[in-house]
């Protein structure tokens, strides 16, 4: 059957693969969207009720009471075998449109998909326009797709804590495929790679990407390069530049470079094939990445706690340094000694 012409295929395949809709309504459905009762949220997640997941993400994102319990529970229940795919790249690269098409493909295969889209918070107002979802609106009525938009809400670089924690929750809930889309600006791109199985870097011709490519770290993290809007002038040049950066690698380790025009749904099949081919390679490094993540998780939790405790003594120490011959280094040693007791 020609899948492109017959819109019915998508739904039939889905019904065969999964009997249970993930947007399930609980039998006792008097449940408030405002609930923060963590044990309720946890039990909803266990019964694969999407309202549980959605509330869990909010609780964790806003650092509400019970956040730690939620995360601990998610971690303990174990990361189900969810294939995680990351899309990163500069704004305007067309990531959301690409993700939309990729989701469509996974749905045709009958897979459930969880999408996490991260957008930047405005440094002036603290608000955000979360504008990735609008490009995926064809999936809104589909019960087999969950899409959540997060604002980065951060002052420093790197994938926001909320996004990292949300991924834990997604994995605990369980989707066949998880897709995270982030704004690739500097540290973000590198961070994403640690948290997913396959990282796709999306570039657009004419954006001065050769400058981007020169930045250390970018070339190392991408498992797949996608040149979107490839009908624009400069696409060939960009492809050459990318290929040039990999000529030192043995052929079977070179990441695929694919041309797409996401708006016209062109090149998506090639992207899916590339994802499949890279996936097996990625599985081998999974364990290592997982260890790296755990280490970082522990480290950052310890450091945040330390930072909080340090702050309690900080002002006094600053006064001491200003008024006496105490140096900052000695002050730090004093605080550490205090905390160790």
């Amino acid at each position, binding site marked *: 059957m020609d899948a492109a012409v017959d819109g019915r295929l998508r739904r039939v395949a889905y019904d065969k693969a999964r009997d249970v809709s993930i947007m399930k309504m609980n039998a006792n459905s008097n449940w408030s969207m405002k609930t923060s009762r963590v044990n309720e949220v946890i039990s909803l997640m266990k019964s694969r009720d999407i309202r549980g997941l959605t509330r869990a993400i909010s609780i964790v994102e806003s650092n509400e009471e019970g956040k730690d319990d939620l995360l601990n529970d998610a971690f303990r229940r174990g990361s189900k075998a969810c294939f995680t795919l990351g899309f990163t790249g500069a704004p305007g690269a067309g990531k959301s449109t690409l993700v939309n098409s990729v989701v469509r493909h996974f749905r045709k295969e009958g897979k459930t998909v969880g999408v996490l889209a991260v957008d930047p918070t*405005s440094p002036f107002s603290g608000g955000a326009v979360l504008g990735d979802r609008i490009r995926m609106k064809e999936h809104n009525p589909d019960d087999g797709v969950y899409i959540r938009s997060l604002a980065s809400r951060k002052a420093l670089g790197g994938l926001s804590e909320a996004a990292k924690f949300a991924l834990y929750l997604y994995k605990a809930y369980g989707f066949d495929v998880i897709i995270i889309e982030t704004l690739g600006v500097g540290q973000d791109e590198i961070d994403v790679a640690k948290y997913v199985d396959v990282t796709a870097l999306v570039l657009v011709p004419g954006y001065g990407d050769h400058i981007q490519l020169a930045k250390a770290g970018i070339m190392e993290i991408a498992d797949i390069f996608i040149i979107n809007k490839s009908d624009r002038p400069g696409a060939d040049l960009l492809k050459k530049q990318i290929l040039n950066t990999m000529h030192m690698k043995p052929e079977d380790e070179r990441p695929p470079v694919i041309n797409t025009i996401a708006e016209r749904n062109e090149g998506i099949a090639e992207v899916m094939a590339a994802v499949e081919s890279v996936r097996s390679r990625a599985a081998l490094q999974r364990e290592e990445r997982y260890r790296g993540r755990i280490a970082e998780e522990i480290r950052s939790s310890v450091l945040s706690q330390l930072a909080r405790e340090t702050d309690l003594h900080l002002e006094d120490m600053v006064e001491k340094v200003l008024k006496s011959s105490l140096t900052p280094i000695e002050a730090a040693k004093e605080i550490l000694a205090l905390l160790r007791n």
Partner: protein
Amino acid sequence: MSREKKIRVLIAKLGCDIHERGALTLLTVLRDEGMEVIYTGRYQTAKGVANAAVSEDVDVIALSDHTGSLPIIAQSVLAELKKIGVTDMKVVSGGLLSPQDIKDLEKMGVSGNFGPGTPLEMIIEHIRSAAR
């Protein structure tokens, strides 16, 4: 990580209404007021909007329509929300409204119901209080 709770708003347009300017204006204004705003785009279905609102765990759904169909639209969205067990989602509306429309909407629990030309400060304040 920021510790404040941000107000999350879903701006939605259902059916075939093409007049987007009000929705787009509200989008940036609410962002500048520190809220996290998602716009569904046009041509949405009620089920799509309900799913999106629950997935995004928004505090308020803002329905925008200029064809005079807000009561019908609000009813369909509330019905879809009920189907997935959500009965306490705050819904506000704005656009072309007759006095009867406003009465019908308020009976359904939809508040705000702002006609064209309503000062933005009023809308912002209402959304803030609805989100509490």
